[in-house]
């Protein structure tokens, strides 16, 4: 018996692994083993005041920190019967554009791209792609700057609060972001150019269309939040019903929960957003999607990288208008709760997929908290494609290193929020 062992995956950044068990060249099983201890955040926040909860839960992750903050605030505002002021809402949209730029630029250019260009890491890529590596860092820096300007800090910013914003960004800061966004359009288009030039490997491609889920952004926009979830089969549901559709369950080999829809795996992430909301894009992002989209996107998770690249163009192109809309409004007062007992679900699109935060409040304190992360929803789907990849590559007589790279590339394409996704597989032969 042979094992392909993958080290370190987790519910968020942390430790887990993949074990591919082989009998000769036949793949007997694939398990995604999560070793990271459960963080028990949902239990930790029980009994907390809502404002303390929304400051605590983003600590789940220092990468999707604003997605967690936004999802928590949305859930809490529903539970407390608050409609946030329009300016708060627009500023939250702006901060999510910053997080998209920060996270997508890092993942596409520095974590995923070396796989396709034949380098072991971005460090190795530096000699031949100096400008592109620096471009990625510049984009990440700009994303960080937007996050800091809107939320107050690069990581775990505290400006977004329930019912409003602690401090709104000033006019000069927004004008600077707007000006810079125009300058950086060629940079994001270059990211698309790089990924569009790659012939996507087909080893992970299934022979039937997959199921993709994403939020349905309001007003038929392409954006990173919504009160309904779209399914690529044409159905949709109210995010308050998320449990019926994500069906979280526990498996023995993992501390992270799993999700199935109608007993089948599904995918969340940029690929899902493009499939479900791509027709709503405008500008050059729309042109690029039209130019590069084909049916393979529905069957091959590796296209998630190209989808993230196009999403970078969307985010960059959206900045000027987003800044203008925030600048056009006076700072409103915070909205106050209209009730202290109630429940609500906030759904946002973290860069790596749909994130749900559900809260039930009793007399102004958290009674129940439930958080479903995108990576947890993707885990079963990743396993399916890892198994297929191992089967096909071994059947084609690929060597250990090639199989390892294939498996790592598939796992990375999901942009899992887990440490070590850049260095996943160890091959052991019995």
């Amino acid at each position, binding site marked *: 018996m042979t094992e392909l062992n993958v080290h370190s995956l987790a519910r968020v950044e942390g430790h887990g692994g993949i074990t591919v068990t082989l009998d000769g060249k036949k793949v007997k099983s694939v398990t995604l083993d999560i070793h990271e201890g459960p963080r028990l955040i949902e239990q930790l926040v029980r009994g907390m005041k809502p404002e303390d909860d929304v400051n605590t839960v983003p600590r789940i992750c220092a990468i999707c920190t604003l997605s967690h903050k936004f999802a928590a605030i949305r859930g809490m505002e529903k539970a407390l019967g608050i409609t946030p002021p329009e300016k708060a809402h627009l500023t939250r949209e702006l901060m999510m554009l910053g997080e998209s730029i920060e996270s997508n630029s890092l993942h596409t250019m520095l974590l995923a791209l070396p796989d396709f260009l034949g380098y072991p*890491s*971005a*460090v190795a890529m530096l000699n031949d792609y100096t400008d592109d590596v620096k471009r990625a860092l510049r984009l990440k*820096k700009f994303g*960080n700057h937007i996050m800091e300007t809107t939320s107050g800090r690069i990581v775990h910013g505290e400006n977004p609060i329930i019912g409003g914003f602690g401090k709104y960004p000033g006019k000069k800061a927004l004008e600077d972001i707007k000006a810079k966004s125009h300058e950086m359009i060629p940079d994001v288009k270059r990211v698309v150019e790089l990924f569009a030039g790659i012939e996507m490997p087909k080893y992970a491609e299934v022979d039937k269309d997959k199921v993709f889920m994403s939020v349905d952004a309001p007003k038929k926009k392409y954006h990173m939040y919504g009160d309904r979830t779209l399914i690529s089969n044409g159905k949709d549901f109210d995010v308050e019903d998320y449990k019926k559709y994500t069906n979280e369950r526990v498996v023995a080999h993992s501390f992270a929960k799993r999700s199935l829809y109608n007993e089948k795996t599904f995918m969340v992430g940029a690929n899902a957003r493009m499939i479900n909301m791509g027709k709503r894009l405008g500008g050059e992002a729309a042109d690029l999607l039209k130019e590069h989209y084909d049916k393979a996107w529905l069957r091959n998770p590796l296209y998630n990288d190209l989808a993230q690249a196009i999403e970078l163009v969307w985010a960059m192109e959206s900045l000027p208008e987003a800044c203008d809309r925030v600048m056009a409004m006076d700072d409103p007062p915070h909205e106050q709760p209209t009730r202290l007992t109630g429940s609500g679900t906030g759904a946002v699109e973290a860069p790596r997929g749909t994130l749900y935060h559900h809260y039930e409040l009793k007399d102004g304190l958290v009674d129940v908290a439930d958080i479903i992360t995108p990576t947890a929803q993707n885990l079963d789907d990743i396993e399916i494609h890892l198994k297929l990849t191992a089967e096909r590559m071994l059947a084609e007589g690929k060597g250990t290193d090639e199989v390892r790279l294939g498996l790592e590339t598939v796992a990375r394409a999901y942009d899992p929020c887990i440490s070590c996704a850049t260095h996943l597989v160890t091959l052991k032969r019995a």
Partner: protein
Amino acid sequence: MHKLRHTPGDPEEGLRAALEGVAGPGPVYVLGLGYVDKADDGAGVLVAETLKKTFPRFSYSEHDGVEGTVLDISERDGPATVFFVDATELHEAPGTVAVVPRDMINDREITTHRVAVALMAAILERSGKTSAVICIQPGTLEFRAGTSGQVSSTIETLSRVLHHLMLKQN
């Protein structure tokens, strides 16, 4: 690799000599990495925050955006030295310090969503800057546990040594 506790004589003097040996000409920058909510994991950030009081233009932490800072430093004229300070599993006693020069930084680091230190070091090298990682062995990584005694002591010592070096070179 220099390890503070393995140095004969005064450990602080040994560390000072080790850092002076690594530092090239020009100003010294400190970039503190880590997560302060996870106890000793935040040691690098705490060193950087301490030094920032005296050297606001030369000391940065995770909170300032490490990659952007590295990019900015790489684009400045002239030589400089960048010390990354981070909590690292050294399999030593808590508070032990190791200085890892540029050529020993692993370029296959296990990191998902932060740019690898090896990449930042490579970018600095290409622009004529020197870099090294100052590793601190954590005692505990327990959530919200605060910094442990041995690591607190190391943070003070390291901050003092770096302060001395920065006064001399910056």
